[in-house]
Every structure is written in structure tokens, then in C-alpha cells.
């Protein structure tokens, strides 16, 4: 039995310690906002925050998350910056199918917490681990800038 702190709640998880956090969240806890995309840390759909650090839950065993503060997409709106990111996503109509956007929002929020006024190069670096097959990258970039209060587009 492993106890994890997920979105500020202690939750007991009855799964083997090497189970990836992704599947514990989705199948055991029922937090399905964190998505499966590749299972090999290649697409970013499963991104959560562990003590504020963007982390790929598909390759993070639950044993490695013990004692850490896990935040998922379901709770990121309680964070001031997370909420700003979500609002920017809505105001610019970023999502198409929406499936990858949980991971995109977790990545963008982590970026803005670290770097409140990111350059395009910062955005490229922080966001290139997240694949969007629908192709919403231009709007994601614009939404990050909007959430950051950057009005000038720097190319």
C-alpha cells in the first residue's frame, strides 16, 4: 500500500510500487484528466507536477512520488497561474480535440511559474516535449504569451 498526496489529498493506493503514476491516477484514483499517449516519455500527454516540477507520469513509478505534492490537471485551476493559463486557452480557442491539452497546460503552467515572461526560445524548450496531433501549436504559443501578459510577439 502506497500513500500519495494528490491534489492536496492523501490517497492510499493498493498497487505494486513500480506501477507508473499515470495508471494509478487513471485506473485506481479515477483522475482521467491525465492522459495516456505513448507510455515512453515521448509525447507529454501524461504530464503532472511533482513538487511543482513537470513530470511525465507514464514513466514515474508511484514509489518515486511518495512524499511529494502531486498536482494534476483537475486541480491546476486552483493555482493562480494555472487558472490564467486555462483562461488563455479558452479565450484563444486553443483546443481542437483537446486530448493533449491537459499535458500542454501542465507544461505551460510550469514554464510560467519558473519563467514569468518567457521568450519564444523558452516556450520552444518547455513545450517541445508535448505533441499535439491536431496542430494547435501557434495558438498554444499565443495563449502562453497572453497568460504571461506579453503583448508583443517576438519571433
Amino acid at each position: 500500500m502506497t500513500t500519495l498526496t494528490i491534489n492536496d489529498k492523501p490517497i492510499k493506493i493498493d498497487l505494486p510500487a513500480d506501477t507508473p503514476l499515470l495508471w494509478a491516477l487513471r485506473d485506481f484514483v479515477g483522475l482521467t484528466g491525465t492522459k495516456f499517449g505513448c507510455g515512453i516519455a515521448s509525447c507529454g500527454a501524461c504530464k503532472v507536477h511533482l513538487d511543482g516540477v513537470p513530470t511525465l507520469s507514464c514513466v514515474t513509478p508511484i514509489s518515486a512520488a511518495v512524499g511529494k505534492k502531486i498536482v494534476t490537471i483537475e486541480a491546476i485551476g486552483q493555482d493562480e497561474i494555472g487558472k490564467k493559463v486555462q483562461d488563455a486557452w479558452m479565450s484563444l480557442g486553443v483546443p481542437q480535440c483537446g486530448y493533449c491539452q491537459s499535458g500542454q497546460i501542465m507544461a505551460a503552467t510550469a514554464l510560467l511559474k519558473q519563467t514569468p515572461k518567457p521568450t519564444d526560445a523558452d516556450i520552444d524548450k518547455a513545450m517541445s516535449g508535448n505533441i499535439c496531433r491536431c496542430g494547435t501549436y501557434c495558438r498554444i504559443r499565443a495563449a502562453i504569451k497572453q497568460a504571461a501578459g506579453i503583448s508583443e510577439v517576438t519571433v
Partner: protein
Amino acid sequence: MKKPLDSAELNADDGSLLIANISRRAFLKDLALTGLVLAAGFPMLTRADETAVSPDPQKYGADAMPHGWVDNPLVFVAIATDGTVTIICHRSEMGQGIRTSLPMVVADEMEADWQRVHVKQAPGDEVLYGNQDTDGSRSMRHFFMPMRRVGAAARSMLEAAAAAHWQVPVQEVIAKQHQIFHPASGRVLDYGQLAAAAANLPVPDRETLHLKKQEDFRYIGKGQVGIYDGQDMVTGRAQYGIDTRLKDMFYAVIARPPVFGGKLLSYDANEALKVPGVVKVIELKSSPPPAEYNPLGGIAVIAGNTWAAIQGRNALKIEWEKGPHGSYDSLVYKAELEAAARKPGKVVRSEGDVDAALQSAVKRVEAEYYAPHLAQAPMEPPAATAQIVDGKCEIWACTQAPQVSRERVAKWLKLSEDDVTVHVTLLGGGFGRKSKPDYVIEAALLSQVMDGKPVKLTWTREDDLQHSYFHTVSVEHLEAGLDRQGNTVAWLHRTVAPTISSTFGPDSKHQMPMELSMGVINVPFAIANLRIENPEAEAHTRIGWFRSVSNIPHAFAIQSFVAELAAAAGCDPKDYLLDLIGPPRRIDPRTLGDTWNQGESPVLYPVDTGRLRRVIETVTDAANWGGKLSKGRGLGLAAHYSFVTYVAVVVEVAVSEDGKLSIPRIDVAVDCGPQVNPERIRSQIEGACIMGVSLATLGEISFREGAVLQDNFHAYQLTRMDDAPREIRVHLLPAAEYDTPLGGVGEPGLPPIAPALCNAIFAATGQRIRQLPIRDQLRKD
């Protein structure tokens, strides 16, 4: 397991809905109880094809689709006493925004306040709702008018109810923003107050409906309505097929034969069964060809969670027999396609005397283009959940084809269709993959194995990339003859590619009319001597639809070749393309040998070279075509007509000294006829640009010894943020009158991207790309 079942609730019957109950059987029961005579409004009798008098016996558009269309407001609209208007969306949401756009059309016509509209997803039931195959860029094209009539009929019933209540002539009342007004007396009633009375009124005849004038549209054409599911998507609440959770549910993955047509020889499940959480390992039979939508068979591992199932599968020891396609090798196959493309093949269109014109040409140009297999790779892989209770199967699936899923599951489980319910979840991307319900059938079979208990089947990314219905692979061989002035006087195009029809029938080696009509046979060039041939190609894997289908290789080849001809003639590529297209004219596609025409009427949808010219002129103006660019930069142009929509693209590239490619900007001009939701049209076109760049630069599925080499995103790469075009500017041509035919939107943006990109690379570097993907062909080390 304590979370409520959102996807189940999505489709649960709602007792508060007064006008109609969306459950078909409940709807029929209501009819029987209330004695309303609604036969005139019942779908089987309302199909336009059965009532309209047409001199042309051929059916087109929605009329030609299975189960046609339905415009009965009782099927699509319900109003609760609190005024909440529930509108049914019967098409699958996969990112195109259809759950916003179609209900928005209904809301506009019925003067419902969008803030008080609730959208409910229809289960698979085409007799009730009309065709539900969400593909072919058809949803708005085929259902704009039926949904307008749905809204107008509902408004008319509300007006009639108010007029009766006030005992005034119906002409004296008007509907506005969720209320009916009687201006003469200043009285007003909310839709909620009128719901019960309106429900008892007859559905007005289609011919008596007054559709809104377009200047009165509140939502249509405005692009002001946000994405209906947007808030759920950004907060993690949105429910996709892979998110379904039922009480006491099992989780499953399947090990499928690595080679298409392969069979299981033996397996050992001992180690798999030792994995904690694994419950059962079971063999699923493979099906004889043709592939159709049948499951591939294999070994299923059923467990208490997805990870345990995956671990169990990893622990299986399996011996496969490769079967007839065990030697499929993409390098060898490419050479076979090239050999076929260099010999005469079946002539599918011929005008003038191409051979003589080539002989006498002052200059001959010849080129071959290769475009590989692709996987759709939606970010949500295929997934479905099934349970069987008391002989009734209930399914939750991310499917583009809910009715087909239902029919096939019924057949496989030997149930009546009425005993199979397919709930449609959100789709985390589709791109054609989720039109094929093999995975839905798999889930149903696994539930059957588990005595009807709920089972969720998940495809891992490896499954998705290795067992898809792949986009075809193609060699396009083109030859042209130029006269002294550089004009093209002869055009020979041989297109060789395994056909989608091979998935559905034996020995299909020629492209279907549908595939040939995707830009190759209906090429609208004014060339006197023109021949198009289609040599044979045998399929060795499941060939299927990928967003924009055969338009991808056809547009890549043709639009690249035009730029090559321009270079050979020493002309500007834009001027040369416009010269080839010739003067504005409306061409009957049948005169081009195109008998398919995207399923649309050749009269309503001719090939309009004026519209094609206009998008080219628009996009080149916007992109400052002909302007001066710095070294290593170049502009490339391509235009393509597909899904009855006209698109032209200018890509700007920058290629560094060492051959690193970047794309500062793409301009796209689109003429898709009337624009219902311009905001979502823009997002679709932006997405098509990035998917187009992705397939042109990186996309390739290849086979060796029968099996797919790429197993995840490290090997099947997709464009990411850092390599995406930095800016995309979408130029929508001014909307025509809303009673003119609509074009498609989801797909037509994609085909011209690859050739425009390659033409830009040529402009920047002088290097001509004829083999996709580009990958490291530009590298200089």
C-alpha cells in the same frame, strides 16, 4: 471507482425533457402514449430522396449516404420547463468543433440563447438521426440545411404555442433570444413556459418553414461562440473513449499478429498470469481476408488495471506464423511501384494524343514522386469499453462510425442491432483511424469472454502505429512536353498505389473512382493532350483512410511537378500554375472522367477554375509573392481542390547553411463556400498546416519482413512546437450566400502543404524534393 460515469450520463434519458426524448424506443413509446401523429416527421418517411421530384435519378450529397438525413425537431431538440434547450449532436467530435457548430446552427434558427443550450451526443442510430459517419469533411456540408430546418421548425412550434395561448394570429408573434413576443400587447413568454404546449403541436411541413435571413443570423458566420467542450478540455473533465470507467470494470490489451494476415502458432501464458493484477489470458481468432473492420485476432490479456494488462502482455511468449505478407518490405515495394509507374497501365482518362505531343515537344520533363505509408496516430489511441447485460450490449467508444460499430458488434455477438447501444464519447483525434471499428468489436468480444462484465480495451501507441489501417504508399510518375514558348502541350500522369478497396475485397489492385477523383483524374488543367493511367499495385497491409486520403500523394506530385515545369520553362511558378488552370470556367467533373465528385452533384458542385484562381491570387497577394527575400529563404506555392473546397498555400521557408529547415510563416487561402463557424474553420486549417508539415518533414511508416518498423513516437516522429510553422495566416474568402453549396473544411487544408513546402525549399536552395518525408535530405554534412 467512485467517480460518476459521465459518459454514461451523457446519454441517459432525461425525464425533464418535454418536447422529445432522445431514446429511440422511448420516443416511439411516447408516440404511442400520446397518440401524436408524427409519421410525416419520422425519418424513414422524411428522406428528401423519397419526396423530392428530381429529373436525375442519381442521389448526391447527404441523400446518397446510408440513412440520409433527418430534420425532425422532435429528434434533435428538447426543451425543459426551466427553458434549458437540449440539442442533439449526431456527428462525432474529434477536434473539428462539430459539437459546437451543428447545435449552434439549430440554436440560431430557433432563436435559442446559446448560454441556455445543452448539447447531448447521440448514440449510434442512423434510422433516427440520419447518417453518422463522421468523415469525408461532410458534417456541415450535409447537415447545415437539415439542422437549420430543425431549428426553424422548433421555433415555429414555439410561436404557434404562444399564439394559441394568447389567442392571437401566429403572424403577430416573434421569437427572439429564447422568448416569444407579442409586440402589439407587449406580452412575452419564455421557451420554458411554452415547452409543454409546443410539444403537443404538429411538426410543421418542411415546405412551410421560414428560414432566417442571413442578415438576422446571431451565431452562424460570426465565429463568436466558444468551443462547447472547451472548459471540460482545459480542466481535465472531458471524457474520451479511453476515459470510460464502469463499476467492476476490467482492463485489457491485445497482442496482435505483427504481420497482417499472420496467425498464432502457439503461446505460453504462464509468466503473464503471474503478473499481479492479471486475471485472464485468452486467444482471439483472426479473420480470413478481406480485412474489412474485423479484429486482427491475437492474445488478449485482461487485468485489474491497464498497466497490469500491459505487463502481462509483455510477459507472453508467442510464436506467430507470418502468413502471405511476411516478406513485405518497403524498400523492395518502392522499387516495384517505380517499375509499375514506368510502364503503361490502365488508362483512366485520355484526351488528344499524348504520345505524339510528347514526341514533338521542344522540351520534355519527367519526374517521379514517392509518398510513404502514414499512420493517423490520433493522440488518443483507439479504445472502447463494452458490457453485456441480459443479452444487451452497451458500448462506449471514441468512434467516427457509431452506426457501423453497432451493426458490426451485433453481427459478431449474434445480437439484434436493437440490443446493441453505442455511446459516442469525445474523440482524442480521429483522422480516419476511428472510422474503422475493429477495436470496438474487440472490446465487445472481450466483455463476452468475461461473461458480460465491463471490459475496457486500450490500444497502446505501439498497437496504434503497428496495426493501423495505413494511408497508402504511392509512386506518381509524371511526364510533360513543352512547346517553344514553354507551354505544357502534353501531360502524362501514372499514379500507382495500393487501394483502400483492397481492405474490403480480394484482388483490388486499381485505385477506386473515389481515390482517382482526389485530384488526379479531375486535374483542372487546360492541356490539349492529357492521359492519366493507373497501373496495378497489390496491398500487403490494411489500407485505410487518413485525413484527406489520396489527395496527399496526388497534390504532392502534381503541384511539385507544375513548379518543375515552371522552372523548365523559365517562368514564375504562380504565373505558370494560373496559365495551366486557364481562364475561369465551371467544368462538369464528369467531362474530366470524374464520376464520383466527392459524392456531390456535378451540377451543384462543378470544378470552378475561377474559384481556384481566386484562392491562388488571394494567397500570393497576402504572402507578398514576388517580393525580395534574404538568402536561404524561399516561398513555395501550391493549390488544390478537394472535398469541394478550394485551397491555395504559400509556405515561407528558411534553410540554414548546414541545411536546417525552419518555417517562419504559412499563408493559406480557403474558399469553402458559406462559412458557418469561421473560428473553427481557421483552427482546422491551422491544424492542417501543421499536420501537413509533419507528414512532409517526418512522416513515414515502413515495413520489413511484413511488420511495421516504427513502434512509438521516437521512431514515428510528429512535428513539435520548436519545428512547427511560427505563424499561420488563414485567409477565408468572403462567404457566399448561405443558400449556396458548402465545401468541406476538415481535410482540404492538408494536401497542398507538402508541395508548397517542397516548392519553397526549391526556391530557397535549388534542391528539389521528390521523396517524402524530407527528413535529413537538406543536411549538408
